């Protein structure tokens, strides 16, 4: 099964194999009732052909609106979902089709941190036993040393190890996220997939957790896939950022380059929504407000999926899908999926979509904020 598709990576794997490589990962969810005779059911295209690599020790940020497939992609990487198609190469091995049994050792290396610090901890179990779970599941450490290991982990993430016997309800949101982090760290993983780890926290607590994540990355040589809808957080933690829209990556670039040399109109609109700390500049800065909502992922738009909302859409954007390739002379590390990428300094607020109604509609005044 695993070897039927040509694996171009295998020969050169020895040299600089990235820790994680996704090849055309797709995850569709059937919706509605399942009927045997109903062949083509509606399908949500949650993740629709994502390819990317994550190098060792790197932090890859993954941003996008709610419902763009970020969390689904995270769960595909952690093999919580089986892929519809595509491959997930982790540490030189395609893990996308591994059996449960073969997957177990891999699970020690790939861990996940969840968004909801309330939902990700079992309310009926003591914190110590939650953190000790990884040891129990993989049968490492005796019961006695498991307790000690759990307490060391608690100390490492900034929790009082004496609170070992408490229940999750007795901790604050930030503390619970630390508990989740301790659990994820227990097996000394290589990769941690952080699914909006700070989105549910207060801003002051967010900073603590982010700094903790950075410290732990230094200490244990961790690789992160960091998912968030908050660009300022992602900018702070990421080496590279991938921007997702409706299940596809539309732009991928090193962090600074993405902010300075934004190519995709969608990325630009996301960046323009960033709050500016200075109220004077905040008033004058360019705001691009996208019209309408994210389209229905069961029937994504033809061609470029962003064209119905794109301020710069041309008629041929609906005809075919732009490939994710470097544009306008960008390096290989900065691919963009757009036929009409932005030049530096281009004012997007002056652009007019060819799909806009005949009378040019005023931009910025209508619609929802992205």
């Amino acid at each position, binding site marked *: 099964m695993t070897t039927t598709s040509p694996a171009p990576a295998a020969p050169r794997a020895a040299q600089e194999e990235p820790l994680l490589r996704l090849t055309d990962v797709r995850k569709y969810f059937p919706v509605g009732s399942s009927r045997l005779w109903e062949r083509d059911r509606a399908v949500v295209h949650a993740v629709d052909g994502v390819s990317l690599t994550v190098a060792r020790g790197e932090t890859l940020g993954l941003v996008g609106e709610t419902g763009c497939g970020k969390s689904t992609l995270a769960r595909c990487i952690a093999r919580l979902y089986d892929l519809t198609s595509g491959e997930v190469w982790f540490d030189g091995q395609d893990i996308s089709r591994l059996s449960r049994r073969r997957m177990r050792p891999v699970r020690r290396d790939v861990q996940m941190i969840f968004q909801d610090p309330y939902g990700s901890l079992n309310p009926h179990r003591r914190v110590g*036993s939650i953190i000790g779970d990884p040891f129990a599941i993989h049968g490492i450490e005796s019961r006695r040393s498991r307790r000690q290991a759990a307490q060391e982990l608690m100390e490492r993430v900034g929790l009082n190890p004496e609170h070992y016997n408490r229940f999750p309800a007795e901790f604050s949101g930030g503390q619970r996220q630390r508990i989740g982090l301790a659990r994820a760290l227990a097996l000394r993983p290589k990769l941690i997939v952080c699914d909006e780890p700070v989105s549910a926290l207060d801003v002051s607590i967010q900073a603590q957790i982010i700094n903790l994540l950075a410290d732990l990355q230094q200490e244990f040589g961790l690789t992160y896939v960091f998912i968030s809808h908050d660009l300022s957080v992602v900018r702070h933690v990421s080496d590279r950022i991938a921007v997702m829209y409706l299940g596809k990556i539309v732009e991928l670039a090193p962090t600074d380059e993405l902010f300075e040399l934004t190519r995709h109109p969608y990325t630009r609109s996301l960046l323009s929504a960033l709050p500016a700390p200075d109220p004077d500049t905040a008033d004058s800065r360019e705001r691009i407000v996208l019209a309408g909502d994210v389209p229905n992922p069961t029937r994504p738009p033809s061609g470029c999926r962003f064209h119905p909302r794109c301020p710069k859409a041309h008629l041929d954007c609906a005809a075919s899908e732009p490939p994710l390739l470097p544009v306008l002379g960008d390096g290989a590390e900065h691919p963009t999926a757009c036929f009409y990428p932005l030049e530096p300094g281009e004012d997007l607020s002056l652009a007019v979509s060819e799909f806009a109604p005949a009378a040019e509609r005023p931009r910025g005044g209508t619609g929802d904020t992205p």
Partner: protein
Amino acid sequence: MTAPQPSPTVHVVGASDAEESPDERRIQGRSPWVLAWGRLRRDRIAMISLGVIVLIVLIAIFAPVFTLLTGHGPNDQYRLTGLSPQGLPVAPNHEFWLGTDDLGRDILVRIAYGARISLLVGIVATVITVAIGVVVGIAAGYFGGVVDTLLARLVDVVLSVPFLLVAIALVSITGPSLTVVILVIGLFSWASVARIVRGQVLSLREREFVEAARSLGASDTRIMFVDVLPNVLAPVIVYTSLLVPVVILTEATLSFLSLGLPPPTADWGGMISEAVPYYQTSWWFVIFPGAALLITTLAFNLFGDGVRDAFDPRSERLLQQ
């Protein structure tokens, strides 16, 4: 399973927490169970009911004491002192405190011994019911798909079987016995437990802590029993405490219809059944076994209500505190 035991050591979460020794609980967490018990303890009606239940349990355990006190065995027939010259039951007097039945047996002693049957059937059948229901419900909810469909159909079948007809048929084949009574009740009441548990598990399955366990590589069995089970126990305990009186009544019903324990075993349902022809002449014959049944089921029901309130954070009484 009649009630969470009245001590804070009810760690139903138990198994996984075994690695802690008590002296190391310096900073003790308060488990959801302890919190629920704390709320329950402030519920006066539930506590009185619990007292009544404990009393009934003691009566059942120490039923022979009544034999000692009165000098009457449960099946001893006192044709001279226990029956009137016309052969009718004797009203309560200094020798027979609650009167006698149509065969001159001491009703008080028989009620005490009958409590054993009621509680035994009530508890054992409930445990069987809950055990089957929880396992089926967790399996159906957790695995979903084909497993769920098959089990859900099974539940529908069980729920649509006419219980009494099957009971009559079974007893006529095997003859009445304690085992048959318990099995009949246990095998036909689990379906509603399974439904409750399945519904809970369906939502729990999507919770992130289950995903976290899966991403750690936990087996399905471990997730079902370590992660999911403790979270469905609260509704199960509530349902259990309300199921016990139902089972006790069912047992009484079966006995009333002569489908329960064969005579001369003392049994509340059977006693009421025997008393029916005498209700005009000997009120005590039907009133006292009936009252025993009523008090028992009422106590369990009120206690069950208290347990439900204690586990339900939206309960009104809790908001007042």
